[in-house]
């Protein structure tokens, strides 16, 4: 299982949980697996083409996956993944 840190604006989808776990072999399958547990999460993180939104960063441990292999970056049990969207004062993208 991979540990995933959920940012405040997405916690409405995870029942308030800041950390969740999901089985996955890479980031792509992690997003699908999270979306299975928490429907709607994928739409918040990815655009209509399934690409990770440009104001959302995903970190594997401390590294930004854009500079690894993107969505094909492999993950293993015990890894920690963080979803960190851009924030600006009181305004947040996708926060209804």
């Amino acid at each position, binding site marked *: 299982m991979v540990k995933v840190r959920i940012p405040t604006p997405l916690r409405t989808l995870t029942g308030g949980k800041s950390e969740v776990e999901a089985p996955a072999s890479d980031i792509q399958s992690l997003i699908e697996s999270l979306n299975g547990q928490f429907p709607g999460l994928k739409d918040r993180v990815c655009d209509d083409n399934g690409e990770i939104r440009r104001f959302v960063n995903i970190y594997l441990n401390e590294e930004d996956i854009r500079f690894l292999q993107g969505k094909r970056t492999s993950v293993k049990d015990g890894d920690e993944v963080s979803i960190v969207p851009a*924030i600006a004062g009181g305004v947040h993208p996708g926060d209804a």
Partner: protein
Amino acid sequence: MEFTEQQIERYSRHIILPDVGGRGQKKLVAARVLVIGAGGLGSPAALYLAAAGVGTIGLADGDVVDLSNLQRQILHTTAHVGKPKVESGREMLVAINPDVAIKTYQTTINAENILGILTDYDLILDGSDTFSTRYLVNDACFFAKKPLISGSIFRFEGQLTTLKPHDGFPCYRCLYAEPPPPGLVPNCQEAGVLGVLAGTIGVLQVAEAIKEIVGFGTSLAGSMLVYDALEMNFRKTRVPKDPECLLCGERPRITDLSGDYAVSCGL
């Protein structure tokens, strides 16, 4: 310059610090720092910059003090409600440290005025609360070759990084390539923020600023600090310079401030 007796006493706790000393304190006294936004982040930041003896502090904010600001914007008091933030800010900063020269800009920062304002400063603190200003400040600081300490907050979370793209480090666009498109920001109303979170991040911006000015410690350039007040944890992530960055990458497409910065609200 030589310190007066009063200055030696006022700054004694800095001067006896091995990493600061008299030399470091002189750098602080000579430094010129612009604080963009005299709000949640800018308030604690400006207070500590003044207390630290930063010689020239610029405050840029076009707003007036609202009662709902006082939950976190500690530069302003109840008596200041309805007054321009830069004016109440000036009053408070002068009261804390009359040595400090305060310059005020009672205006919204925009593409036309920002470069002229940046000229007079060595370092910029961004405490703005919209994406449009945040990207504009980032781009302008890159063109003006000014280090930028960026802080942002949302509800219980804060982000902090030091941006020096002119010095081989990443810029804000390396971190987040583009602001969110209009459709994804339903409105520009406040989503709520834990007041003290503004204090935490604003004060950390000053810690970075002082290190940058005096030249000690490890900078957050190339990293981002993410603070979660609910879980009470701080995490650091790496922020590489993006070779594809539209601003500071190998093939830049943003070469001036003529682009559309007013996209973040979308209403």
